[in-house]
């Protein structure tokens, strides 16, 4: 046997990975800088397949990076900037200590700055890649834009975040590509479809933040730095695709409308302009004037590997989307001052409605409360003193529910002081066997064009119908349960039969036993299956058991929800009856 003996840990996976500390030393960066670099460059740790081998025999918990990744970081220009910045800080401190004020000024002027453009370009070589990753960026920007302008981060960052968020919202309004909204207890979720990408982001409710102490704001700031850059470039590109001016400008009409308003409230011209933009009440200026020929419908060609049916389905979806885009067209909304103005204005404008608010509430209102043409007045208080006759006074949830349902829902359930129907998440897509809340079923029926049930007519009737519905549901569930309980039933039956055999020896006149053919067939099939399961290999049996366990758990959870609902409805009904009796 020739050749030298191979040494341990000198080739293979042990050399492909480096621990975090080693990587840091290789890059000669402090931990904070290393963290920043990883965030900016999108480098994440890897979990080696054989941890012990990589860890050179030790089992200590350690994070590992791919050596290739770390090598990739070695010639990153930003690393040099980090070092420069460190030197700058040191020099500045020295100058301060020596009270060399001119030196301080000069140094501040020459403060090293770095740009992340090349990193964005490198991480997202195509625009679609960037758009795919924009979710987190949006959520973060919207969060930062709600921060107070003191303390946690630079004022410029907050302003930039706000600006980018407003730009994004304006774009979505112009494209009319919002699809879903959801009022959760955490914040408001929005989902839009931009260039075929589904983008979801969350905006917190407008409250001052109680800043937690166990959050590292440096990490968040680094992410925001990256995200603002990304979002800025994405916005620029998006505006360009729509022939909009970037940075956004209000179009002539909108500008004229707003000119007359109180400008003396704002110290700076630019400030008032940005406020007007963020009011979301006017459309944006275009580089190429919009030609109003919407009717030119594009011809549809089936794509490769697509048959006619799928194409038709696609067309149908498109048609539906077009319809949804014009959901609020022709409606005029007025927002009372207690409703979340920005969210509602965004929503209504996204679907083609006109919106305004009180002049004293915010800049950018287009018409007054007294306008006769207002169709919907959105109020979030139990009663309102002065009511106009020719408009609906509704609660804000109506707007959100309409958007999710893609139709204008009947307004009766959303009047002032009325108990609201539950607000459902539009993101839940129930698959076969999942629990579907009855409200969703009702909504689906409405969407199909069936007549909405008249609940106000007669309560009893409504109740009965509800019951019917419940029954149907139970049927559905019972089918599933059947499958699940089949085996148990069979086992029980067999046991019973076996016990039956042990009866006393008395001879009694026999009865003709009617054999349920279906039943026996089913039994046979179940038995066959059980026997076949016995013959499964160990590995497959494990997998099979796991899958079945998951299925059974789902069924159990669905049943639990259904039972809870039933109990709740029953209690409600009993309450109603009691109330009626009392009234009688």
């Amino acid at each position: 046997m020739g050749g030298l003996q191979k040494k341990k840990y000198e080739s293979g996976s042990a050399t492909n990975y480096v621990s975090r500390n080693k990587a840091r030393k290789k890059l000669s960066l402090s931990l904070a800088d290393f963290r920043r670099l990883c965030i900016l460059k999108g480098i994440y740790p890897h979990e080696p397949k054989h941890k012990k081998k990589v860890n050179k025999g030790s089992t200590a918990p350690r994070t590992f990076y791919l050596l290739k990744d770390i090598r990739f970081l070695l010639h990153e220009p930003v690393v040099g900037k980090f070092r420069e910045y460190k030197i700058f800080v040191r020099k500045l401190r020295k100058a301060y200590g020596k009270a060399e004020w001119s030196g301080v000024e000069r140094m501040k002027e020459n403060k090293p700055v770095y740009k992340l453009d090349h990193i964005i370009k490198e991480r997202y070589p195509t625009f679609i890649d960037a758009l795919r990753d924009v979710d987190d960026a949006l959520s973060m920007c919207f969060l930062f834009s709600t921060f107070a302008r003191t303390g946690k981060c630079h004022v410029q960052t907050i302003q930039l975040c706000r600006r980018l968020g407003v730009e994004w919202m304006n774009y979505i309004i112009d494209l009319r590509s919002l699809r879903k909204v959801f009022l959760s207890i955490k914040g408001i979720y929005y989902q839009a479809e931009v260039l075929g990408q589904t983008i979801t982001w969350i905006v917190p409710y407008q409250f001052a933040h109680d800043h937690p102490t166990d959050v590292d704001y440096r990490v968040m700031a680094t992410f925001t730095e990256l995200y603002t850059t990304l979002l800025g470039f994405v916005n620029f590109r998006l505006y360009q695709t729509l022939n909009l001016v970037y940075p956004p400008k209000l179009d002539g009409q909108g500008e004229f409308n707003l000119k007359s308003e109180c400008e003396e409230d704002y110290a700076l011209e630019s400030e008032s302009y940005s406020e007007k933009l963020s009011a979301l009440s006017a459309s944006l200026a275009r580089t190429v004037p919009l030609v109003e020929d919407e009717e030119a419908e594009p011809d549809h060609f089936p794509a490769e590997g697509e048959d006619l049916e799928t194409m038709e389905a696609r067309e149908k979806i498109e048609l539906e989307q077009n319809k949804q885009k014009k959901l609020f067209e022709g409606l005029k909304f007025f927002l009372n001052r207690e409703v979340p103005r920005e969210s509602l204005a965004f929503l209504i404008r996204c679907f083609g409605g006109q919106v305004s608010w009180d002049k004293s509430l915010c800049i950018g209102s287009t018409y007054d409360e007294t306008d006769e043409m207002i169709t919907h007045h959105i109020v979030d208080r139990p009663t309102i003193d002065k009511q106009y006759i020719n408009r609906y006074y509704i609660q804000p949830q109506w707007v959100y529910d309409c958007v999710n349902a893609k139709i204008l829902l009947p307004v009766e359930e959303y009047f002032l002081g009325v108990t609201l129907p539950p607000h459902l998440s539009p993101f839940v897509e129930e698959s076969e066997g999942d629990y579907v809340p009855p409200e969703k079923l009702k909504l689906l029926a409405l969407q199909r064009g069936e007549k909405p049930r008249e609940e106000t007519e007669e309560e009893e009737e409504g109740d009965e119908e509800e019951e019917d519905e419940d029954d149907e549901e139970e049927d559905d569930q019972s089918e599933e349960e059947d499958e699940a309980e089949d085996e148990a039933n069979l086992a029980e039956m067999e046991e019973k039969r076996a016990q039956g055999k042990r009866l006393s020896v008395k001879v009694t006149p026999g009865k003709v036993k009617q054999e349920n053919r279906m039943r026996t067939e089913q039994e046979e099939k179940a038995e066959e299956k059980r026997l076949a399961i016995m013959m499964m290999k160990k590995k497959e049996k494990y997998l099979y058991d796991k899958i079945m366990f998951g299925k059974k758990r789902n069924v159990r959870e669905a049943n639990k929800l259904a039972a809870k609902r039933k109990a709740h409805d029953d209690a409600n009904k009993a309450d109603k009856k009691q109330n009626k009796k009392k009234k009688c």
Partner: protein
Amino acid sequence: SALERHPPHVGSPPGSLDRLAPDQSLLIFITFSVRSQDIRNTVGNIPMEWYKDYPHIGYDLEGKKIFKPIRNKDELDEFLDKMENPDYWRTVQDKMTGADIRLSDEQVDLVHRLQQGKFGDVNFNEYEPAIDFFSNEVMIHPVTNRPQDKRSFIPSLIEKEKVGKLVHAIKMGWIKPHRPKETTPQYYDLWAKEDPNSILGRHKMHIPAPKMKLPGHEESYNPPPEYLMSEEERLAWEQQDPEYRKLSFLPQKLACLRAVPAYSRFIHERFERCLDLYLCPRQRKMRVNVNPEDLIPKLPKPKDLQPFPTTQSLVYRGHSSLVRSISISPSGQWLVSGSDDCTVRFWEVSTARCLKTVEVGGAVKGVAWNPNLSICLVAVSYDDTVVLLNPGLGDRLVCTATDQLISSYEEPEEVKDQPVQWAVAEGEGHEQGHRLILKHPKAVRQVTWHGKGDYLACVIPDNGSSLQVVIHQVSKRRTQNPFRKNKGLVQCVSFHPIRPYFFVATQRYVRVYNLIKQELTKKLMANCKWISSMAIHPGGDNVICGSYDCRLAWFDLDLSTKPYKVLRQHKKALRSVAYHRHYPLFVSGSDDGNVIVCHGMVYNDLLQNPLIVPVKVLKGHTITHDLGVLDVTFHPTQPWVFSSGADGTVRLFT
């Protein structure tokens, strides 16, 4: 003295006074004024409490002790002094001597001046006109007369070098006095020209971070009522570790949008997402996307594999304790069962009637009917005894022939020393059917006949000795111990149905011995912890082993010494397995009370592996004392199976 040469307080320089704290300077003045009494303490500036416990307070100039003045004033005296003495206020105590000193008017005045921050000296003028020595007026006589250096006339070389370097750097463009202004706008079309080369291998390897999970109905501010937590659920949620909670928040129902509060964990959640993005290792995980139905193997339908026993048709009742062993006569007409109630019962198979009950002297461990059709003999083992019974059932000719066969034995001339005592039953035993009694050294667990019906093998499980298996020859009343060495605790033995092989199952292995060559031919590894039972296919090439760890191993002797297939059908330990003599069936009985009938087809074609399909689970035995089915056996001709259980019954499944 040194003090006298200096004028007292009057001439002392005011500057020195300034640096002292007021009370200290006061003390100095006072010490100076005490000079006339000439009691000078020489201890110096030390804390005077060091002399607290001594009668003296220091030493005078001649080195004699200065004694503390006698002070016998108590508080009252002090008070009276304060009230009556008009000079009390100007009396101070000298710390150095302990004496009381009355301050003079001058001294009091000095104190007052110092208190007001004035100079101690009354005559000192603090506003004297200043004389400007270094003024702008050039005088004819310079203040300093040092000639100027040469270097003040010639330019500095070092400076010149430095400036030269800077100038060069500026000329070359290395140093810029001002940073160049940014010309590119903050944002521009970054993806104006997308070149395909920019997509590197990295991007193909990149695993994008999974998107945030989308909220469900329960996160709504106004969820349907079924998504709200009940009181118990809420308590459970609160007690759970936040890491293990299924929902990170409590679902709430709020009446209107106005009532929605701020979500306190919003920043936390964003931060956690950030951490996930840069700290979590990412891995592509292949999600198993299989239809569970596809995992179930496709087996031939049991219907097509008939006949096999499907229903319980007869129950043989009579035993009062667990039935350990059953055996069926080669004709298939009779069944014998041995129970722990010390009886052996003979049953008619077709009617379930107990024809005969024979009592023996102990719990019956094993019964075995002689497979030879021309001999009617049953071997019964209890304790350390094996009894050969002639039940007297069936053809009378056969019975009498059997009796004759036994009685025609002639004692050989040379009596060999045998490990077992043979005795002929007499008296009452004989009437009951006992014919031969074999006394073994230890308890016998199993008896089994050779196919010809002359040889009888007994298992005497004993870990220590080599005498674990004995083979008796009934016609010659001879006993052999085939093994010299103990190879482990023997569980059961069996004869090969056709060839002269002998199977011995120990705890983990089955050894196959050639009886003619007297050597070990094969050792089968059962891959289980403890073999309980074994059966040999009538073809002789396949063996099944049941084990206490719920497995049934099928060995194909031509294939390998490892199991061809291991079946884990039973939930509990297997007690007994059996092959059918003609039909391709085998059966296993277990402690879970089930008897599982399997189709086990062995093909003559050597290339085709045996086909094993479970066809029926037979239930009927009730579980008593955690024991279910103890023995199973097939009918010799029909596809019927008998099983005996711990509930004292024998059941027939047809």
